[in-house]
């Protein structure tokens, strides 16, 4: 074991390698790792934020759904009401129409009856006159008896 200038050589080499490592190896490695750490932290934060956003969105969806359901229910309710109203109205209209038709028919019938009465009366008057003519077998003053027969027919 003899100590010699190898020691100096080794020391110089050692100093050089440490200097080189300090200058050109450590800083870039350190920077790369720090940057990766930051990126990972950012990524995790973004993931947290996204999951929170998702939670919020879910809540909002539930709210909207609830509102929509309420709205739909009220619309259906309204529609039902309106439908029953329409039905009521239609019923009312139908009844009125029916009544009107019945009234019209009755009026017509009355008219027919009256007309038939009128005809009948006229015919009866004629028959009565000709019957009376036949009974009397004499010519009677038609004009004098017309009033008589007419009042007779009217009393029928």
């Amino acid at each position, binding site marked *: 074991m003899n100590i*010699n200038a*190898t020691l100096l050589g080794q020391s110089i080499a050692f100093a050089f390698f440490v200097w080189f490592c300090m200058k050109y190896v450590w800083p870039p490695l350190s920077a790369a790792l720090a940057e990766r750490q930051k990126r990972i932290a950012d990524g995790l934060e973004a993931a947290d934020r996204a999951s929170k956003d998702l939670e919020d969105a879910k809540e909002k969806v539930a709210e909207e759904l609830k509102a929509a359901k309420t709205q739909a229910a009220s619309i259906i309710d309204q529609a039902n009401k309106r439908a029953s109203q329409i039905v009521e109205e239609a019923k009312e209209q139908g009844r009125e129409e029916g009544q009107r038709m019945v009234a019209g028919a009755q009026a017509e019938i009355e008219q027919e009856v009256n007309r038939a009465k009128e005809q009948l009366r006229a015919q009866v008057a004629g028959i009565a006159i000709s019957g009376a003519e036949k009974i009397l077998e004499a010519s009677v003053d038609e004009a004098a008896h017309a009033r008589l027969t007419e009042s007779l027919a009217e009393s029928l």
Partner: protein
Amino acid sequence: MAEAAGAEHTQTQGEYIQHHLEFLTFGKDAEGHWHFAHGDEAAEMGFWAFHVDMLGWSIGLGLIFILLFRSVAKNATSGVPGGLQNFVEWVYEFVETNVRDTFHGNSALIAPLALTIFVWVLLMNTMDLVPVDWLPWLAQTISGDPEIAFRVVPTTDPNVTLGMSISIFLLIIFYSIKIKGPGGFFKELAFQPFGPKLMPFNLLIEVPTLLAKPVSLGLRLYGNLYAGELVFLLIALFGAFQLPAHFLWAAFHLLVVPLQAFIFMMLTIVYLSQACEHH
């Protein structure tokens, strides 16, 4: 190893181990000439000699580390990382966690320092798992010199481990003075643990404690890896029976290699953290 046994049939077992523990030395001899040397000639060169093999492997592995990590760092994406970036980030986070848990000061140096130490020492220790004769044999074949000494595990050279630990020691001194001021640093050495009146005793305790840090740091790593390599060399002498033994020791070393790199890094962080803390 069969090929080595062929090349070194004239060696005794002692010589085999001796040869494997010799460095490829390039230094200045007594007359002031610079040349490669081995054996006693290398030992006589004194301080002005370099272990070329150790420095080569150490710097080569260090270059592999910084180039690999630089290529990843340059193209590092904050998106989904690829396979290599994943691995580098895993190492980065391992080191960063340890630094953050232990070092409470604020310094741009500590973390890259710890990363460099951990990966570099780990790579150097890992060379211990390469069978002991392969790379020396390659060196002998390429150089054409059958006697060439060539070691491959830089952390089995105390020069390498102490070179690092002394650099860390200088950082400890630097941070101690920077954070606490020269007076504060001196007070920490002189006024503890017995109070200002017993200053000589305090210094007698604290100064060796301080000096023991780089020595223990460097020698721990060196001792563990040197012992490991020595056992690999002894196993290589078993001849035909070496394979199971080699496998067992390598499996055990699979634990020692990263553990020693980790300990070296952790102690560095702890020492520097102590240097930066007020008491």
